[in-house]
């Protein structure tokens, strides 16, 4: 299968005083144009680190392995894949994970962009919103005339459905409400026309009513612009609303993947099941927490990383890391019971 973005065997290792740790462990995923993949997992499972690897923004000293191919379309990805297979190493420039910083400057913003939980981390607090968006455009199209840049910036604000765009363009980030700031960041991320958007917990800090508006906006944009969207969240309800497919991450690995509705309605991995049973809903019911907590990266259990917390564990679970097994057509789970 060929998609707009294909990631294979992505591993990130970081040096710590306690030795090398692996926040991202042999992750493979794919996203097509116009498709939305929800990446869910609890704190520390490696979601942000995975996003940072795809943005070329890993912390200094990080080691990264694997392949991440991004094409204009499926055809280009297929060509790159074939070329990489024929002449390994040579086509390294097309593997995102092998880009150098100079190459990244063309790709970041232009082909891939990211929005964060806290817009202030990517907005410049002392620059007017409009100027920031213009700069984002100019960074990728230096030959564009000043008037065209202005027009494109206004379009970008309009796309993010920012009311009174001319007024907002003249304001500084702190003058905007949380929801509007998030819209401004989305406008900026999309200003230079990327095909792949990563949204890392973009609504976690927002009120539910505002969250709903931002989720609707992202959904609308990815359909209209045919964006490949990687939506990161810890909230299963949110993922159900925005994702076509969902990948569940635990201790650096993807442990279940499949169509969102199917994974959430009939999860096959005990961790996903546990997460659903621990998620409060509007129905009062007996909450069943998962015992224990997420393992430290310095002490990931051998075999299945969920084994110490799993009520269904067996002897074989500690022997080796279970493979992703096919549960049903495009639905896979990393558990010996599948």
């Amino acid at each position, binding site marked *: 299968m060929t998609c707009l973005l294909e990631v294979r065997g992505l591993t990130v290792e970081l040096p710590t005083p306690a030795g090398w740790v692996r926040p991202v462990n042999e992750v493979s995923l794919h996203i097509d144009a116009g498709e939305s993949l929800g990446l869910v997992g609890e704190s520390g499972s490696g979601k942000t680190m995975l996003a940072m690897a795809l943005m070329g923004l890993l912390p200094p000293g990080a080691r990264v392995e694997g392949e991440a191919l991004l094409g204009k379309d499926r055809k280009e990805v297929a060509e790159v894949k074939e070329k990489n297979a024929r002449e390994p190493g040579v086509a390294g420039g097309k593997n995102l994970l092998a880009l150098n910083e100079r190459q990244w400057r063309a790709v970041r913003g232009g082909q891939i962009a990211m929005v964060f939980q806290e817009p202030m981390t990517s907005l410049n607090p002392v620059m007017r919103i409009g100027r920031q968006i213009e700069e984002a455009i100019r960074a990728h199209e230096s030959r564009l005339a000043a008037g065209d840049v202005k027009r494109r910036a206004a379009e970008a604000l309009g796309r993010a459905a920012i009311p009174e765009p001319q007024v907002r363009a003249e304001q500084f980030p702190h003058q905007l409400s949380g929801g509007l700031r998030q819209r401004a960041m989305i406008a900026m991320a999309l200003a230079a026309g990327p095909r792949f958007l990563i949204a890392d917990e973009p609504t976690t800090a927002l009120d539910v009513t505002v969250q709903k508006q931002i989720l609707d906006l992202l959904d609308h944009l990815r359909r209209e612009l045919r964006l490949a969207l990687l939506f990161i969240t810890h909230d299963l309800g949110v993922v159900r609303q925005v994702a076509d497919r969902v990948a569940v991450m635990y201790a650096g690995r993807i442990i279940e993947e499949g169509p969102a509705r199917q994974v959430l309605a009939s999860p096959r991995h005990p961790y996903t099941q546990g997460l659903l049973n621990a998620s409060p809903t509007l129905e*009062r019911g007996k*909450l069943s927490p998962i015992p224990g907590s*997420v393992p430290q990266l310095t002490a990931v259990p051998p075999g299945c990383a969920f084994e110490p917390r799993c009520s269904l564990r067996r002897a074989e679970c500690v022997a080796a890391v279970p493979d992703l097994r096919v549960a049903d057509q495009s639905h896979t789970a990393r558990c010996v019971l599948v």
Partner: protein
Amino acid sequence: MHTSEILLEARDLRKSYRRGGGVFSKEAEGPRFTAVDGVCLAVERGETFAVVGESGCGKTTLARMLVRLIEPDSGELGFRGKDLLALRGAELRAERRQMQMVFQDPFASLDPRMRVAEMVGEPLAIHHPELGKTEKQERTRAMLERVGLGADALKRYPHEFSGGQRQRIGIARALILRPKLVVADEPVSALDVSVGAQVLLLLQELQSEFGLTYIFISHSLPVVAQMATRIAVMRAGKFVEVGPAEQVLHLPAHAYTRELLAAVPSLPSR
């Protein structure tokens, strides 16, 4: 069935702040912004009275006024039949011992160099100076054990614990004086789903075990739905709807409550 008894009662509580301009502001009297705008409530003994609302609606200011961490501008506050706002000195201390808070980040206001034993035992040291050292230690150890932490936790520092364990420590500190009322302000919103559920369950168990009354503050309707006997929906400093939990969740009367409910992303039913 015994008749219900009011533990805490508030009438027309108000609190406003000066907008912007701090101590160094040029304008001595800037425009004021009303954080809590005439709230009335009556909390029955043994119930969980939840206040739900979006950021900035005034719920934390309200919570802190109820335990007199913040002084209201006006209004009345009764606790166990006493006029809480009129109490001073030893009398006030005696009542405040009966009302404790659980915070979103239990250590935000505590010295990070304090060991867990001191953190949890500190209220005992303040309110029960008559207790001997071993008695204090024993009560601290027992309380920690009750919230699910072993005796090895005593000698450790807060940064050595995960978020869920830290909240257990915060709960132990709140309960060590055996209060009647616990005001919990967003106690699980910083926690992961699986750990947050553990803490909610622990709070439920402790409530029946110690006969506690809860005031539970949260921005999350699903979380509130797990805990509340009654729910107050707060917006812009006011309660727009108060009622039995089932009714507010399933037959909301106010348009704002319906809007909040509609925005909650749903999960498949279990």
